[in-house]
């Protein structure tokens, strides 16, 4: 090992001594910065991952839409299912309705689904908490749990549904009665936006409500595992007429994904300042070290050490603090993530805010998802910043002339 690296390690971890105070404080700052980055980015990643997961579970990998409604959809579904990489396709009709139960009204999206094929594309059964999709018929609906709670409806109750068509005809002075439907089940997807404003019914019910006849609003597609969504969409588009287009879920929700990505990047950038502040602490410690060790630096020059090697000795100390602080920060961060739900549960129990947490943050448990690239970015940025923190002390040390350094008091 070159002498300057050996000396850098020895100055940080002297033989036969306890962990030096300067090293401890400098490392601790980096550790806390990295741990916080890992925890926050993990939780942010978890929110994004869970949200994406829910989108794919409720919308499929690919959405097919037309300028208007899709006519002869069975033929389109058949053509789409013949494309390589496509596992299944299911038609849907979806629009906003007004529902009324007693004196309470709400304005959810009512989505008509094809009961024969929906299970192969969007696994809604997985999210049913009361009843089953099999109980659905053309005069019944499944309510999302929070929506049911907000209007006070239960399984077995009958509610009134007003579609845009109903309201339009009412405006034309026609008498048009709302559709009476029974509640046969409830589902909870775990995403507040969907759980508070979604109703599922049969495709026939939705077609009747929206006056679609035998057409549909769109088709959801599930790809076989491992097939890329963009490739799948391109292949499907190749067999579709020009007025019907397939979009990957990433294309369909590109604005939403961009916002998620922007949030993550901004938070990463802001939290990185903690590491930068920690780096200033490293720099300050090393600058003090340069002043304290001026005569030693002079000795190194007198013994034949070149200025660049003396500089490397102090830069290496910044690097080693960065590596050590990063390793400890990763351990601390991942440990905190492992126990995150216990901590959140304890806090919400103590403050009696479990329900608020679920309503406000959309998830009943704090999600976490950390990618290798995020960890790599945190590790590289932290070590680079810590090493750069050693540059100024290194430059000051390298500028010292041995003869003047040896003479210093």
């Amino acid at each position, binding site marked *: 090992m070159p002498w300057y690296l050996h000396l850098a390690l020895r100055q940080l971890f002297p033989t036969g001594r306890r962990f030096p105070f300067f090293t401890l404080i400098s490392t601790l700052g980096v550790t806390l910065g990295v741990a916080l980055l890992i925890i926050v980015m993990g939780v942010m990643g978890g929110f994004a991952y869970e949200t994406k997961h829910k989108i794919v579970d409720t919308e499929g990998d690919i959405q097919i839409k037309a300028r208007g409604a899709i006519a002869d959809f069975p033929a389109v579904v058949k053509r789409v299912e013949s494309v390589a990489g496509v596992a299944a396709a299911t038609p849907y009709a979806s629009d906003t309705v007004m529902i009324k139960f007693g004196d309470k009204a709400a304005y959810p999206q009512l989505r008509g689904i094809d009961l024969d094929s929906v299970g192969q594309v969007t696994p809604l059964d997985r999210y049913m908490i009361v009843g089953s999709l099999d109980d659905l018929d053309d005069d019944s609906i499944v309510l999302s749990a929070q929506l049911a709670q907000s209007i006070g409806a239960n399984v077995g109750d009958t509610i009134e549904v007003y579609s845009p068509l109903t309201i339009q005809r009412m405006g034309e002075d026609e008498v048009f009665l709302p559709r009476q439907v029974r509640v046969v089940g409830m589902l909870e997807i775990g995403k507040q936006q969907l759980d508070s404003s979604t109703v599922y019914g049969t495709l026939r019910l939705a077609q009747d409500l929206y006056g679609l006849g035998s057409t549909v609003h769109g088709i959801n597609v599930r790809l076989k595992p491992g097939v890329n969504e963009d490739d799948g969409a391109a292949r499907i588009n190749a067999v579709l007429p020009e007025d019907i287009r397939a979009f990957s879920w990433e294309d369909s929700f590109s604005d939403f994904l961009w916002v998620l990505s922007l949030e993550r990047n901004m938070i990463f950038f802001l939290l990185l300042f903690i590491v930068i502040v920690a780096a200033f602490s490293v720099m300050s410690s090393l600058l003090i070290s340069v002043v304290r060790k001026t005569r030693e630096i002079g000795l190194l020059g007198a*013994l034949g050490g070149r200025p660049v*090697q003396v500089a490397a000795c102090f830069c290496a100390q910044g690097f080693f603090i960065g590596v050590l602080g990063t390793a400890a920060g990763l351990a601390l961060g991942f440990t905190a993530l492992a126990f995150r739900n216990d901590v959140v549960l304890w806090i919400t129990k103590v403050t009696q805010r479990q329900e608020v947490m679920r309503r406000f943050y959309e998830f009943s448990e704090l999600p976490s998802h950390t990618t290798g690239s995020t960890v790599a970015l945190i590790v590289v940025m932290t070590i680079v910043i810590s090493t750069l923190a050693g540059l100024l002390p290194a430059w000051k040390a390298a500028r010292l002339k041995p003869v003047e350094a040896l003479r210093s008091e």
Partner: protein
Amino acid sequence: MNDPVLSARGLRKSFRSGDAMLEVLRGVDLDVAAGESVSIRGESGSGKSTLLNLLAGLDAPDEGTVAWDGSSDTGARRRSGYLGMVFQSFYLVPELDACSNVLLARRILGGIDAAARSRALELLDQVGLAGRAHHLPSQLSGGERQRVALARSLINHPRLIVADEPTGNLDERTGNAVVDLLLGLCTSATTALILVTHNAAHAAKTRRSLVLTAGTLGGS
């Protein structure tokens, strides 16, 4: 005839003192032969340390030349192998034990191996610190620290050792022992020695004794 281990010609050095220039060295000439020991005495402020710094290549003269073994290359790379240095304040690295302090000069020269470790222990044995190789400087007395510094100056088999008042921080008895040890080690290794000292008795033990007066060197 072989080139002298050290040859200095016409060394001049001035320092700014306020508005005036203070001429410390006014044309110093010095030759030191292989294995020779030379002492330089002088009053405080006479320029002894300045001269030593020029001879060791740590500072550049305003005028004149310094050559080691006929070569004017006195840079850091060459210094680590050619020259050993001993200072009044020992200058041991506090985080390294005695053995590692001795080996530091070797590491700077270009890495250590088993033979280097063995030589470091041998040198510590020669200076009477065989049992203290793994003690930190803070666990050693002043005399012991200076002996570690002596061992460090010899680890790279230097042709020349320059010692700048090595007994300045030691009591008389310890100082005598250190100088005797230094002279003995230099003699046995046929290493030349330049000893800067205030002590006339120590100077008398060297083969040639010089005095720096008014910026020039002369015999005692």
